[in-house]
């Protein structure tokens, strides 16, 4: 049943990739992001330093080639390179997991509403409208203050607030898809609703969803950084980019590198992801040549 669709899908994907990589800036963003991910994985693993052990003789060492501490050290003499790379790991992980959570909720919500239509649709979308007016950012802050600082909670909390846009878009797409013949055909063959949504509707809206997910990741990373900046992020001695920036901000006069280095990495990651999201959207856009 779905075979012809799959074949039709595959070719556009290769085409998409070609379009995406056509621009130099996109290739640069992909490369930078790849390098950061690679460094975040490898550096803490290969480095002789770890993120938590103090070194009394190296407190506040400015960046230096000696001993490989190219990013310098912090208030407890810990290697900033390793800590920043751990920060990248945390930030990327938060971004990914929260985006997955939001995509899953958003897609299921939107697809269900669009596919079932009628009363269910009205109810589900009306609740989305109401939720749009709920001040979620402050609520997540409140939640984080109240229910401890477990990383998992940060993931889920952030993911749980950013699915509304996706739900709306997915519903629109689903409505369009449901009017196509193959859906009618499948329905006539007796495919049940959950299977319909998962096997036929969802795969066909993945394109637009991926674009939105790509744009959700940097937003989530920034939000986590904001929480960490306000002191509501991960547990010390672990650090995220946001908490490193916060620590650096209080040292900005005495040891500016503590602010500048994590800020640059945070901005780079967000920049690359934003750019990729844009590029993906452009590549998917049929108007573009």
């Amino acid at each position, binding site marked *: 049943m779905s075979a012809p669709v799959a074949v039709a899908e595959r070719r556009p994907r290769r085409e998409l990739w070609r379009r995406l990589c056509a621009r130099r800036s996109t290739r640069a963003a992909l490369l930078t992001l790849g390098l950061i991910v690679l460094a975040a994985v490898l550096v803490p693993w290969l480095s002789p330093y770890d993120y938590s052990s103090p070194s009394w003789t190296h407190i506040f060492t400015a960046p230096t080639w000696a001993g490989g501490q190219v990013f310098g050290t912090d208030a407890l003499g810990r290697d900033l390179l390793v800590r920043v790379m751990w920060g990248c790991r945390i930030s990327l992980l938060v971004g990914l997991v929260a985006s997955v959570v939001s995509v899953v909720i958003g897609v299921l919500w939107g697809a269900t509403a669009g596919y079932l239509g009628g009363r269910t649709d009205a109810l589900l979308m009306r609740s989305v409208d109401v939720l749009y*007016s709920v*001040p979620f950012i402050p609520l997540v802050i409140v939640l984080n203050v109240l229910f401890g600082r477990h990383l998992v909670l940060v993931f889920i909390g952030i993911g749980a607030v950013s699915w509304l846009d996706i739900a709306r878009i997915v519903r629109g797409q689903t409505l369009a898809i449901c009017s196509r013949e193959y859906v009618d055909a499948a329905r006539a063959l007796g495919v049940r609703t959950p299977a319909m949504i998962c096997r036929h509707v969802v795969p066909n809206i993945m394109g637009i969803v991926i674009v939105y997910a790509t744009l959700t990741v940097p937003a989530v990373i920034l939000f986590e950084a904001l929480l960490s*900046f*306000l002191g509501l992020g991960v547990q010390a001695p672990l650090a995220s980019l946001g908490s490193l920036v916060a620590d650096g901000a209080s040292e900005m006069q005495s040891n500016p590198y503590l602010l500048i280095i994590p800020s640059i990495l945070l901005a780079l990651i967000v920049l690359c992801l934003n750019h990729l999201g844009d590029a993906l959207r452009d590549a998917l856009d049929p108007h573009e040549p």
Partner: protein
Amino acid sequence: MARFLLRRLLSALPTLLVIATLAFALLHLTPGGPFDSDRTLVAQIQRAIEARYHLDEPVWRQYLRYLNDLAHGDLGPSFTYRDTSVNQIIAQGLPIDLAIGGCAIGFALLVGGAIGLGAASRPGSLRDRLPMTLAMIGISVPSFVIAPLLILIFAMRLHWLPSGDWVGGSWRHLLLPSLALALPYTAFIARIVRASALDVMGNAHIRTARAKGLGDTAVLLRHALRPTLMPLVSYLGPALASVLTGSIVIEQVFGLPGVGRFFIGGALNRDYTLVMGLTLLYGALIIVGNFVVDLCYAWLDPRVRLNR
């Protein structure tokens, strides 16, 4: 029009009720009460305090009491700041956030709009690429990085402007915080305006205008501006409300007495009424923002009818 207003108002009520209920439930579910401190209180005093703030009643009655007060426009007494009420705190802090937020949004609209239109008038040129790259960077650098840097440069090194504080809203004190808050919005607006302007420029009526021999700028201002603003307007609604959240960081870094910082302080202190009051305020701002958006739509595009 009156019917439209009324209907919008009525449809806002359930939303506010949901927000109030959600906030109430969350706060009452959390561990730690508003009057726990490292000085354990004598049972007698604990009871006296709880009686004063009606914390000794069953939760459902507290909830009804809160809703009743709310219906009378009373957000209750603050638990943390024991000499004042939430109404007072908001009355004192909100104007500051509105001033900074208003300046920031105004700046973002003017500068971002100009950049976006400029970029769209010559797509692909340096006038397009450079500002758009800067805008992308602007979106990616959070305000808690920009704000300390602004202080470092303009207050501590150059001594041009005060490093913060709020003295009756003088422009010198307003400038740095507004700028720090405005930069990400400016970047967003520039991008939205550019994309939308490019879209509009491809439309038939613009081509007609061009064919008539009108210059680029004239086309842009006379024919492309209105439709270009449409997507911008839908962005601005939520943005207006998010200024309040954005100001949490700005207030902290610049030491301003707005309401944003009470979100965190209030939650830390289990100041139920303060957090609920602020959450409702924020929700109300979003609703107002969306309402203004709808009005603007109607103004920008006569095809949109209000009492649809």
